[in-house]
């Protein structure tokens, strides 16, 4: 063969056709700073016009690239400047209008999701941020494609417990308002510590404060490819396994870089980052849990899971970083429960519990993701789960997040089906003991000592 070897060609084709290799998302980040107006109608018009003109061709470009390289590009998305930063004097009702405008723009250009209905409140809350947070339940109930996120903590600023309490109340209300659809509203809202400003993945994508006018970020995928390579490797040492994972991560990320470069050229928008994440889907053969099991665990969640995940996460980064000119976003393995067929099974057979998931989030990207809990879980307990997760991120100087679904009317033993990429979530038990007095103290957890690096 004149270009690459026949085996290389067959390997690539096999990865795409049988191991679910795909590019998970092309996400266009758009700054909304120049949309600002003191008139809410004018602000909404500006936002709509800017998004529909900047991202007019993103879907077509994505489809053309997918056809050219024969690799699926699953999602085309847009992220915008955190809306709380551009709302000006908007009140909660005004923010809902902005939410509907974003949703209408997303529908007009045909994208899958639009992110950035967000506020950054790690140190405190401006009036606008507070109004936006209060509007989240209604905004996400009355829109289809809008995603929302809050950054409630950072290593530099500490943890804003008042914001976590507001987030807990919003989650509970969202679950109730979308009770007819298994509380699906909660799947579109995520609470962060150390949120990355160039993340292309939903629900947490937003176009950060220091980002350019417009940018293309790409999220890769490919847990099936890594799982299959580990299985083929058979009985080898962990050192050898780490090398195999690195090589696969290099190949997966190369596809992401190629797609990102091509999309950036076609849309005439600068390339931002490739996010090196192993993102599972509910499809068979596209699971992060199965990678861990192929490494030698009987079931994901048993003893050894955190160690296996730590090694996987590190090897993915080491391999991927070599393949891209600029790496960013979340970059690591995702462990969303409902979106991963192996995780769902591990929960159903009693191998995987909330406590183990929390430990796993200390060594991989993101956090407690797409976890359904009983509908009668109290706001305070939800806040406690979030606060634990956020503390892991703050102390370890990494991103963590919580996307919890207190599924209305459901209890342990039930499961909720969201359909599509969001998958099916078995309801997981939470501790019956209260943390209410701790949460009601409110205030702010100071930044850890090691934040003082200057």
């Amino acid at each position: 063969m004149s270009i690459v070897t026949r085996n290389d060609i067959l390997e690539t084709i096999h990865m795409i056709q049988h191991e679910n290799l795909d590019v998970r998302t092309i996400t266009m980040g758009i700054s909304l700073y120049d949309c600002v107006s003191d008139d809410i109608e004018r602000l909404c018009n500006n936002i709509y016009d800017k998004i529909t003109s900047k991202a007019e061709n993103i879907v077509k470009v994505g489809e053309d690239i997918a056809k050219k390289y024969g690799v699926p590009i699953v999602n085309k998305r847009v992220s915008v400047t955190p809306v709380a930063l551009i709302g000006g004097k908007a009140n909660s009702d005004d923010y809902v209008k902005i939410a509907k405008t974003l949703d209408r723009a997303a529908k007009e250009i045909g994208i899958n999701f639009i992110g950035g209905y967000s506020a950054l409140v790690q140190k405190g809350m401006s009036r606008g941020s507070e109004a936006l947070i209060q509007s989240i339940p209604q905004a996400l109930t009355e829109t289809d494609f809008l995603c929302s996120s809050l950054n409630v903590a950072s290593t530099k600023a500490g943890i804003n417990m008042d914001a976590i309490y507001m987030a807990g109340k919003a989650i509970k209300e969202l679950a109730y308002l979308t009770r007819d659809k298994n509380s699906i509203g909660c799947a579109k809202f995520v609470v962060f510590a150390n949120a990355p400003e160039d993340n292309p993945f939903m629900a947490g994508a937003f176009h950060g404060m220091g980002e350019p006018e417009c940018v293309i970020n790409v999220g890769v995928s490919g847990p099936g490819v890594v799982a299959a390579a580990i299985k083929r490797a058979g009985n080898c040492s962990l050192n050898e396994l780490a090398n195999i994972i690195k090589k696969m991560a290099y190949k997966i990320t190369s596809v992401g870089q190629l797609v990102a470069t091509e999309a950036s050229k076609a849309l005439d928008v600068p390339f931002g980052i490739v996010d090196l994440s192993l993102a599972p889907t509910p499809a068979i053969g596209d699971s992060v849990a199965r990678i861990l099991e192929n490494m030698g665990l009987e079931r994901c969640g048993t003893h050894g899971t955190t160690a296996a995940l730590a090694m996987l996460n590190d090897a993915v980064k080491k391999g991927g970083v070599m393949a891209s000119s600029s790496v960013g976003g979340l970059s690591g393995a995702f462990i969303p429960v409902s979106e991963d067929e192996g995780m769902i099974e591990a929960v159903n057979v009693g191998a995987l519990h909330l406590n183990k998931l929390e430990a796993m989030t200390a060594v991989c990207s993101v956090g407690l993701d797409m976890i359904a809990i009983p509908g009668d879980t109290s706001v305070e307990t939800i806040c406690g789960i979030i606060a634990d997760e956020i503390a892991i991120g703050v102390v370890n100087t990494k991103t963590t997040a919580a996307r919890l679904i207190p599924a209305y009317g459901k209890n342990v033993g039930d499961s909720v089906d969201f359909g599509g990429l969001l998958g099916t979530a078995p309801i997981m038990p939470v501790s019956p003991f209260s943390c209410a007095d701790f949460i009601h103290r409110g205030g702010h957890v100071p930044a850890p000592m090691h934040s003082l690096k200057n």
Partner: protein
Amino acid sequence: MKAVISVTGKDGVGIVAKVSVKCAECGANIIDISQTVLDEYFAMIMIADISALNMTFGDFVDHMAVIGKESGLQIHTMHEDIFNSMHKI
């Protein structure tokens, strides 16, 4: 610029001919063919120069896929860059 055309499916008379004729019609110049038959299972990787295509690459991909459908074969046409990216450092 080159394209990699992979063809797999049940063996039969005239598969190479059909694919080659369509390549010629589209302006793709075949520069390498690797082909084998295993237990009546036909597998071919063809590399074609596509710098003189008389249509867009996307249309070429569609034309080849139609031939595949008509003949009961799996035909995938991909730009060489994806292989170069993944397998060359």
